[in-house]
């Protein structure tokens, strides 16, 4: 228990941790601020104003159409020779919605914000997790600690559990603040209508999956940095994965017309995990013909369960490998 306490304390005392948490909060703040700025509550007066603007636009369009007709009569060839094709717009083609500043609909819009929160926090968790153990290996602090507690597996797993506990705390706090903030934004600049218990439950599960993503990212960063005994190992691996897998592989696979190549890319899986499913449409494949729908591109649906199994497997393999390597290696 004392080791766990020491490790939690070490983690929160690190400037690196503080810096990245601050950075995350800043970005989250900017996103929230931007959302608040670009949304407006719809009231009778804003709707009336939008209605008026739409009217004005309609009149203008009529004027343009008139003008075009006159010019067409003077010189039909420049209008393709057929002036009958120039039809003025009707009023209902110009909707007042287009002139209305959108309002923040909590039920419809918050899930996306939850994904933003989870993705950002996952990134921060990866970096913090990697640096937490990487800097210790690198500075010799790990060796020092092992002189005090010569139980390698115990030390590493306590460190990891301190990290995961700490990340859970961070996620819960920021998640609650994030929800509160957008509730406020929805109240002031939108609507909180239709938030039934079912909707709340679904949001809650969404948040839990977000937490899962954060923990997986933290554990993977921790594991890779521990195997490489350097923070840079994890960061390098991450950049390598992004460059090789996300860009390189995407190009190669799409050129090679591999079926559902998006399956090999991370965003599909994160999307599936956060939004319960992700549909991959393969436009390059021969279509599936059906009598009802005609020719349709084949699709493949990644479910959140599949994504969950993948993430769990990857983190178990990496954390397992880090435990395996620390067990037997010479610490010099």
């Amino acid at each position, binding site marked *: 228990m004392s080791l766990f306490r*020491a490790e939690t304390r070490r983690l929160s005392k*690190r400037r690196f941790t503080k810096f990245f948490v601050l950075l995350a909060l800043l970005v989250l703040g900017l996103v929230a601020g931007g959302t608040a700025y670009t949304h407006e509550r719809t009231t009778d007066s804003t709707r009336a104003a939008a209605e008026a603007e739409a009217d004005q636009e309609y009149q203008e369009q009529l004027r343009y159409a008139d003008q075009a007709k006159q010019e067409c009569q003077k010189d039909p060839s420049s209008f393709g020779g057929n002036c009958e094709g120039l039809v003025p717009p009707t009023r209902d083609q110009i909707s007042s919605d287009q002139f209305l500043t959108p309002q923040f609909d909590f039920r419809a819009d918050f899930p996306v914000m939850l994904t933003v929160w989870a993705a950002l926090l996952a990134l921060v968790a990866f970096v913090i997790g990697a640096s937490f153990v990487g800097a*210790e290996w690198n500075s010799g602090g790990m*060796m020092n600690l092992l*002189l*005090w507690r*010569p139980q390698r597996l115990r030390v590493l797993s306590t460190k990891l559990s301190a990290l995961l506990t700490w990340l859970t705390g961070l996620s819960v706090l920021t998640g609650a603040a994030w929800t509160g903030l957008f509730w406020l934004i929805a109240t002031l600049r939108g609507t909180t209508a239709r938030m039934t218990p079912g909707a709340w439950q679904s949001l809650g599960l969404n948040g839990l999956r977000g937490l899962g993503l954060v923990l997986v990212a933290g554990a993977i960063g921790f594991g890779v940095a521990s195997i490489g005994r350097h923070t840079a190992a994890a960061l390098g691996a991450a950049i390598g994965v992004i460059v090789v897998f996300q860009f390189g592989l995407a190009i190669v696979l799409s050129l090679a017309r591999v079926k559902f190549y998006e399956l090999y890319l991370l965003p599909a899986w994160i999307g599936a995990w956060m939004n319960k499913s992700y549909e991959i449409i393969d436009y390059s494949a021969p279509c599936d013909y059906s009598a009802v729908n005609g020719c349709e591109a084949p699709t493949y649906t990644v479910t959140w369960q599949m994504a969950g199994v993948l993430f769990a497997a990857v983190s178990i393999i990496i954390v397992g490998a880090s435990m395996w390597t620390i067990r037997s290696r010479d*610490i*010099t």
Partner: protein
Amino acid sequence: MTAVLEISGLRKTYRGRKGVRKALDGFDMVVEAGQVHGFLGPNGSGKTTTLRTLLGLIKPNDGRMAILGRPVPRHLPQVARQVGAIVESPQFFGNFSAETTLSLLADAGGVNKLRVPAVLELVGLRDRSKERVKTYSLGMKQRLAVASALLKEPKLLILDEPANGLDPGGIREMRTLMRDLSESGMTVLLSSHILGEIQLICDSVTIISAGRRVAAGSVSDVLASHTSSSVRVRLEPGVDLNGAADLLRAAGAAITVEKDHFTVGNAGNPAQITKLLAERQIYVSELTPIAADLEDVFLQLTGTAPVDGANRQVDQVAASQGGWGQ
């Protein structure tokens, strides 16, 4: 006396890209309770490797080790609480202050945090304890390392080259500190290549060379058993000094003739000198072993004495010359 530390037949081979390197080759060591024990050896002889192995940081290929009577590494978790150690150059996370570093270690090891200011005071870092370790000089980091080793009030204190980077004042303070600790009942194992230090403060020594023990025992014993190889010989006035010297040379002695005496550098058995000379009716008026210091013994035993006109390489060990006449 009981042994606080026992090592026998320790072997460690490092495997690298450039093949294998035998760092320890059947090394033995015994440290008795309450002593300050010097662990001497030239660079790369295996001191740090021994201490790392002992503390469970690297796995030996063979050999047995015990600390405080308990076999390690099996019982290391139980004895770790009683062993304070620094290994090689002190390494700490640079962005924490000395105080934070020690307080985190105290937490991790379940040691009373009140010890932290006490040990900082002891090593003379009290006034700088709030500054980041990154800003410390080598000597200050060394002091911090000693402080961290003392934090748990160990029964056995293991210090790997603690004088590294210390100023003369610091070295003297360290010496006094070790004396005090030893008087309070702590056993201190001190690795070093600074021989004067060891000779001044150690009760006993182990000398290691190329991964093997080449000498062990109390400092005076080690000195005594290796000083007799060089003796000063004075003859009765009027006797032909050069003639006598030639006589001995012919028998294989390494002679240096001085104005009124000569020295025999490799006299394993000084009786041989008197015997050979007496057979020719030459009588010796003085036959004194020349007192060597630990440095001579060290250079002789480890075969690292400088040779004129040659640059000795770190792993190069001269074949140790056997004493003449033995």
